């Protein structure tokens, strides 16, 4: 809340990416008689909105924070604090993005509901509890995934290229510019079974299949959380052993 500029930036980004994209898709769907790949526009619009709303949480920025700590040497100071370094970074990241996320999501949802309406898939009783579960899972998985990228800074001189690749994999398989409904079959499978797609399962919640597949998708998410959490902890342990404190 102390940084109103961040809210302005997120609003601009949401309008630039999501708003423009929704208008373009509206035109494309109109040309195709309102339905593409058996999916109506209203579903695609909400799916893409969920992706961009989730991105305003800025969980991916944890990579850069860890990378900066390592490159600046600040990590030595933070390791000596009586708190877990990764825990501190995770909570700091959640705190910094929560306010813009809540404001952008609430306002965006109201605007979208008024403009395109609410699909019937979002009015089913199971929607709200499962969307909450998958949102929590997506947040944890994103934080772990991007923490791994950040921790690579202990071994690699330049982490940015790795960050870009992971970020773009999340962007493609998460259903950002191309909604998951329009994915070719092999890409849909990749989105379903890779951690990159699993970190954005919130975009799947508005589709018809969600009601029959939600437990499978949440199961996949939990699997990746466990696998990547173990990887993170191992990497973090090794990273701590690599740190050498140089006084001065």
């Amino acid at each position: 809340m102390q940084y109103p500029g961040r809210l302005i930036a997120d609003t601009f980004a949401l309008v630039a990416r999501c708003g423009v994209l929704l208008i373009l898709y509206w035109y494309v769907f109109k040309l195709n008689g309102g339905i593409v790949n058996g999916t109506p526009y209203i579903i695609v619009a909400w799916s893409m909105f969920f992706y961009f709303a989730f991105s305003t949480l800025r969980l991916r920025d944890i990579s850069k924070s860890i990378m900066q700590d390592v490159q600046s040497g600040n990590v030595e100071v933070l390791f000596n604090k009586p708190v877990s370094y990764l825990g501190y970074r995770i909570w700091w990241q959640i705190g910094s993005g929560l306010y813009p996320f809540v404001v952008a999501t609430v306002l965006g949802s109201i605007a979208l509901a008024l403009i395109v309406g609410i699909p019937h898939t979002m009015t089913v009783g199971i929607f709200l509890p499962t969307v909450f579960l998958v949102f929590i899972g997506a947040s944890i998985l994103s934080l772990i995934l991007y923490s791994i990228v950040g921790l690579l800074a202990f071994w690699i001189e330049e982490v940015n290229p790795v960050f870009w690749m992971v970020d773009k994999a999340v962007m493609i398989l998460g259903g950002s510019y191309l909604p998951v409904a329009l994915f070719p079959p092999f890409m849909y499978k990749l989105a379903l079974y890779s951690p990159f797609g699993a970190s954005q399962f919130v975009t799947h919640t508005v589709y018809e299949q969600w009601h029959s597949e939600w437990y499978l998708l949440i199961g996949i998410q939990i699997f990746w959380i466990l696998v990547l959490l173990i990887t993170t902890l191992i990497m973090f342990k090794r990273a701590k052993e690599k740190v050498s404190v140089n006084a001065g």
Partner: protein
Amino acid sequence: MFKELRFALYATKKNIQSSAELRTSFLMNVVGMAINNTAFIILWVFFVQSVGIIGGWHAADIVGLQGFAALSYGIVFSLATGIRKLPDYVASSAFDRFMLSPKNLLLRVATSSFSASAVGDMVFGIICLTVYGFLIHVGLYQILLILVLLVLATVVFLAMMIAIFSASFYFIDSNAVTNGLFELFLTPSLFHGGAFQGAMRFIFTFLIPSLLIGALPVESVRDISIVKLGLVAVLAIIWLFLSVKIFNRAIRKYESSNFMTFGN
């Protein structure tokens, strides 16, 4: 004028040499960015496969669009990435040192920094435009068109960078505002050009000139349209003129924060 340009070239040369010193990092940035950019091609090619041809745009045109956008982005960000650092310069008062320099202020700021990853964008852009040329079987006239349009797209990009980042002088938390505005300009330039029709096409051509970066140049080359070339040329000149005016007006708002430093 030539003296200023010679200085700009010298500053750029030094920036490149400095970046190239960290060879592994430099190469990783270049290769990483080139791979990173392919994501947009994958996305929009699948889009074309799913929804069919929209506004006469084929998958090849997407390659051309990404080529124009990446190459103009790469040229501006490798030669004039200092403009993007204006919010930091202003906030930290590092801008003082540019004001004290006897060189042209805008040129001095622009060439104050270099982005290694932008070289990756350039490499990617060149590859895309070459592939695009093969895909649409370009003739000599179209090759000339591509070269001219590339220059014009770069001018538009540079002009918009100057105009957007001049906002740094008006806001306290300007980093967020300028990045938001930049996003608003850049993101639509990477979208499928055929989907911009009617009011959207007007807005993103005349008010926010995102389509001048890639979509209009691609259509101009594909249709061999002199009208579209003329439109891009006229708007590029207008935007460059306007952006320099905006910058010169904006710097009057600058106040040094009296930090005990002249920047790093």
